[in-house]
């Protein structure tokens, strides 16, 4: 059977890897390619690389980083940041990306998802959605790296993406991101019945049991890990060994 995926999620500012909390207070945590090689060697299932400044500066992720990573790693790489049309997506695939990740431009123009899934196949197109829980318990969707709230609700946006042929959805909780205090399990429990494509949880992982909890409660297909790997003493080998001990279906490496 298909195993759960442990996915290091890399945030880029230009050519450097950064990590913050609540989508701010970023610190430099190294070189994306050398970090990707480390997690590849440890047996990560995939790496997601997102340039968080690309859309703001109206440019795209530096595709030379994708090329260097795929030449040195033997795992799938999903890339995103500033992809706003088919040509941008072609650039990423030509550079070697296995999947492209779209966020702000897809939320502003959901037809983009349809164009891309028609051209590249659903399996190559991933949507990333950033959400924040409002005081009333509603999940608001934010674009431009968490700086701008949009009017469309989370459920509606997910429904539109699915109708347009999205192949996978990564949902990041802005409130939990970088806090190491655990995933927002309610969020994924709520989304899971609505999402019939792979769903990846992101934001808040800080311990082994955070992941066990998430998988037990929500049946997500994978977890995206950031600070826990970059700034704490965890590695993929030990994470997998712990999860296996808790009967999470994990690929042995």
């Amino acid at each position: 059977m298909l195993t759960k995926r442990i996915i290091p999620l890399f945030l880029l500012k230009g050519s450097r890897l950064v990590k913050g909390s609540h989508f701010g207070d970023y610190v430099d945590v190294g070189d994306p390619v050398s970090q990707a090689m480390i997690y590849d060697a440890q047996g990560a299932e995939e790496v997601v690389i997102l340039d968080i400044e690309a859309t703001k500066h109206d440019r795209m992720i530096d595709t030379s980083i994708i090329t260097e990573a795929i030449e040195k790693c033997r795992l799938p790489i999903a890339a995103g940041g500033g992809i706003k049309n088919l040509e941008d997506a072609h650039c990423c695939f030509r550079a070697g990306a296995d999947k492209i990740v779209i966020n702000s431009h897809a939320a502003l123009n959901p037809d983009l998802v349809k164009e891309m899934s028609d051209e590249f196949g659903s399996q190559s197109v991933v949507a990333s959605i950033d959400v924040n829980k409002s005081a009333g318990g509603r999940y608001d969707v934010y674009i431009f790296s968490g700086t701008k709230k949009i009017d469309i609700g989370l459920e509606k946006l997910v429904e539109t993406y699915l109708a347009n042929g999205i192949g996978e959805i990564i949902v990041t909780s802005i409130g939990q991101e970088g806090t190491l205090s655990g995933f927002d399990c309610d969020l994924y429990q709520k989304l899971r019945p609505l999402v019939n494509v792979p769903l990846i949880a992101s934001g808040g992982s800080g311990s082994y049991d955070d992941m066990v909890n998430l998988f037990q409660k929500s049946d997500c297909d994978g977890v995206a890990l950031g600070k826990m790997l970059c700034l704490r003493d965890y590695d993929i080998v030990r994470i997998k060994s712990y999860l296996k001990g808790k009967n999470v279906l994990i690929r042995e490496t």
Partner: protein
Amino acid sequence: MKIGIINYSLGNVGSVLSAFNFYKTDAKLVSQPSDIDQCDLVVLAGVGNFKTAVDRLKSSGFWERLNQAVTMEGKTLLGICLGMQLFADLSFEGGSQPGFGWIKGKVIKIDDKSVRIPHMGWNKVQAFDNNIFQGMHQQYFYFMHSYHFVPEDKSVVVGTTKYGNTDIVAAVRHKNIIGVQFHPEKSQGDGLRLVRNLLEEIKC
């Protein structure tokens, strides 16, 4: 031994090249159909839409040349992912579209309500071929697809993977052609081992 990876502007052939380069082989991307003449092994990779792939292979002149290389010259060919699905005589991705027809069978959408589509991630392959799957660790490989190949003659199937209630065809082998639904170039150690096994097998 020369290895040619067909570069028909669809998908990331760079990773495939990089996997072959790991074994210091004489592998290169091939953009002209005539370059196939010198190749001992041809690799047909590809992601995306079946029809788009067929159209691009035809417009670039690769279609005829590959057909000849496989059916007349007996050249060894490895098909990866969509490259394997192209072996079929018919695909139902976006209507119905004929493939090369090297192996009788159809490419259909995974039809199983109990699982999520696309089939995306690492799944374990049960192998029925002692050559290309030898010496591996756990036989987990990376899959990313919504359609799968169902050959008529089951004897060509040399690997399957379980997804929900479906035994998805993960690898096929028929005369001089070998196809894998997963991505060996993305499957870490066992993926590289498959490349090595193939290289050792065809060593002249």
